[in-house]
């Protein structure tokens, strides 16, 4: 009777191999959610440090008026709804080391141009 046991083991080994091959290719990337609060005239936090290879999911909400959240030098931009009306999401794939700037892209008052922050991507 040992034969069926061997066959079952082999069958399980093939199944395990198939499951491993079918796993998502991007699973090696770290994913990180960063919650940002926007209010006249600052983002909090205003500096975000991540390792190269991290996928950062910015979830931005406002404590007052509607703001914008824009990565300078890209077309990535979202409108952050007014307080109490939800949040905006923008994904940043940190595949290259360096310092990147985010800013408010919707004029929000006399101090609008102070609303900036940075993403530092480290090796």
């Amino acid at each position, binding site marked *: 009777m040992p034969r069926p046991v061997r066959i079952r083991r082999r069958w399980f080994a093939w199944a395990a191999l198939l499951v491993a091959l079918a796993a998502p290719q991007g699973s090696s990337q770290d994913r990180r959610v960063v919650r940002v*609060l926007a209010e*006249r*005239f*600052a983002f*909090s*936090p*205003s*500096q975000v440090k991540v390792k190269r290879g991290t996928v950062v*999911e910015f979830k931005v909400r*406002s404590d*007052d*008026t*509607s703001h914008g959240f824009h*990565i*300078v*030098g*890209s*077309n*990535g*931009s*979202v*409108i952050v*709804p*007014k*307080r*109490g*009306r*939800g*949040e*905006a*999401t*923008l*994904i*940043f*794939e*940190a*595949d*290259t080391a*360096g*310092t*990147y*700037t985010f800013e408010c892209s*919707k*004029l*929000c*008052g*006399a*101090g*609008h*141009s*102070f609303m*900036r*922050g*940075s993403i530092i*991507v480290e090796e």
Partner: protein
Amino acid sequence: MFRTIKLIVLKSDDNRMKTLIVRALGSVALAVLGAGPLLAQPAVTASAPPAEEAATPDGSSAEETAQSEQSPPPTVRASQVRRDDTGSSSQTGPISGYMDFHLNKPENEDPLLDFHRFVLLFNHGFTDRLRFIGELELEHALVEGLEESGELELEQAYLDFRLKPALNLRAGMLLTPVGIINERHEPPSFYGVERPFVDTFIVPTTWFDAGAGIYGTFGGSWQYRAYLMAPLDATKITADEGLAEARQKGFLSNVRNVAATGRLEYVGYPGLTLGASFWSGETSFNFPREDSSVGLIEFDGRYHKGALGIRGEYAHVFIDGADAINDLLQRSSGINPNIAEQMRGFYVEPSVRPLPGLKYDLGAFLRYENFDTQFRMPSGVLPLKQFDRSAWVVGASYYPDPDVVLKIDYSVTRNRSTLFGSLDSLNVGLGWWF
């Protein structure tokens, strides 16, 4: 329905009938299964409005509500971010602005309606790194060329040259970076119908003039501004209104000696902002034989957590050569303006937003202020006690929208004089920002 069909099939004696019914049901089931994926696709019709223009149930535009859960969030890849202005294009933003409409009822006087401020803001991005921002303000609704009839002011009109987060350049008509209110004066952003007395008599908001300088952020928690600006005019300093009339406001501003000003802010803890500001500049360009200068130091803090908030500010003004200015003005006009050597003021303002989770927000506050425009006089001159003032202001703000505020407050002011009284006042204000 299925139960009825089952009963018909089971009770029927005719096998042919049974076969027909089963085949019919099988065909229907097959048709439903085949059509299912097609029916599951979202319907697209020519009359459906574009997502950006769709209105939400409360009437706000889709732009101002949370992103649709069906549309994936935009993704930015670091390797594709432009490090220069290549590819960025010139873009003018929509006009925005704020308005401030007041009803003031001083004690024992007639009530006054005042459309206090009508402000329009403009912005234009020449590139990602070169930006323009302008702010044009009409005060008191009517301009006849004198302060009593209102003012048309160019409060901001500057170009930003963005180099890197820690170092950027700015030039044009600038807001002096002193205090809480001067750079942050939209009606929904502060409590009280009128701005705090300290931010009127000691820090002369809105304080703006021509200049240039640098600004930036560093260490993740610090922000700074450092400008060279047109100086104050010492001959316009008064005992009653402090520095307010001494601003040159970019109108042929004399810059024989420029003033230096700056501000450092700590924003590293959620909800907390701590700031320190200074101003220093020669003021004697209208009487070059005398030396006179104004120095100002200021500290402020704001903190809010949950329903509770508190803010406070302390400002101290030093006027070198005040005695010489008083002598000169007395000789030229016959009136001694009694300019002090030092002025100072402070306030503290606890507040509560008891329903912070609601869209229709409500806030209440109590503010104590103490301000003295003759805190220290030149030697041999006694201060006039009516300029040593204090105020209690209590009030509430209702926000039907985060950008619209209905304010009401009652202000009790006192001074140390036994000859001059103070007026309490009831104030109601409607302010909005767009």
